[in-house]
């Protein structure tokens, strides 16, 4: 599958538009269907496509494991942090009205930040799931036939 020129070219062409579409869904969620959950899955789909076509190693070079783990935690921390920021500004937890002088604008900022956090966590969880499942099976196959074949040839 990885040597098929049609798949490789299609994946290269599609990769960027999928991410742009994901960002559109992420930040246009106030006006059209979508939001953090959907955008996270779409952006993760772009990286999963890359991983499927160009291999898990290339995917790991694009998004290193430490970065993925950091994003996993950062999303939840951003969400919780917006809540704590509301408390620090004399409001209630997750009260966006106090984030800016104008309550309506504060709500906008709060919603965008919170959705960003959701999108970050969902993207990295989906990516981590893919790498965990696909990498796990690859590990097992590498352990069984290839190890013995390699040992024999040496």
């Amino acid at each position, binding site marked *: 599958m990885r040597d098929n020129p049609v798949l490789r070219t299609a994946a290269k062409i599609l990769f960027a538009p999928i991410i742009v579409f994901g960002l559109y869904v992420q930040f246009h969620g*106030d006006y059209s269907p979508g*939001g953090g959950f959907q955008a996270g899955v779409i952006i993760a*789909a772009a990286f999963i496509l890359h991983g499927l076509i160009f291999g898990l190693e290339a995917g790991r070079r694009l998004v290193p494991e430490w970065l993925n783990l950091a994003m996993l935690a950062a999303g939840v921390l951003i969400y919780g942090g917006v809540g704590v920021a509301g408390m620090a500004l004399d409001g209630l937890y997750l009260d966006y009205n106090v984030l800016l002088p104008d309550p309506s604008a504060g*709500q906008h900022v709060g919603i965008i930040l919170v959705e960003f956090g959701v999108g970050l966590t969902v993207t990295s969880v989906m990516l981590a799931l893919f790498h965990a499942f696909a990498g796990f099976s690859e590990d097992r196959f590498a352990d069984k036939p290839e190890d013995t074949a390699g040992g024999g040839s040496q």
Partner: protein
Amino acid sequence: MTVFVTNMLLLLFLVFLLVLVIRTRRLFAVVVLAGAYSLVSAAMFVNLDAVDVAFTEAAVGAGISTVLFLATMAYLPGREKVLPSSGRFGNNMSAAIICVIAGALLVAAAVELPAVGDPNAPAHLHVAPRYLEESYSFLHIPNVVTTVLASYRGFDTLGETIVVFTAGLGVLVLLSGYTRTRRTRNETLSRGEGDDA
């Protein structure tokens, strides 16, 4: 009327796909059929004007789940094992009785439900009017779903995000081996290779 007929057709198609999923023994075909099932239910949600839900169903159900299932399939046998006891008459009878009773209860409950889009349905009389009015006049956000999800129901969404986070963490610990034993095993392996060299 058109909505009703389209939904009925989609529902029939869903039942058809479900029967296929149950009858098929080749796991690859089952995974693809499950993706098709998600896509058809997404079409059904669009038909019911729940575009946000349809979006999620199409992206998660038809997209990511299919890929994850396929990735998992790489270390499973290609065909489902049929248990020899599954053809026994007694088992089938008790299963049939449970199915009929549960189905009858669901139908009895569904008869009582208000019609789709009924403005006098209890769900539309409680807080929904306030959300609909306030979300545009005060917040100037046209998509009420986003306002309810992120602002009015911010705590719920925080909980959902933490659920996703925890699920991801659980899978990572189980499969990627972020545990002390796995790390020491790798260290001993690399040390052993070093000794050989």
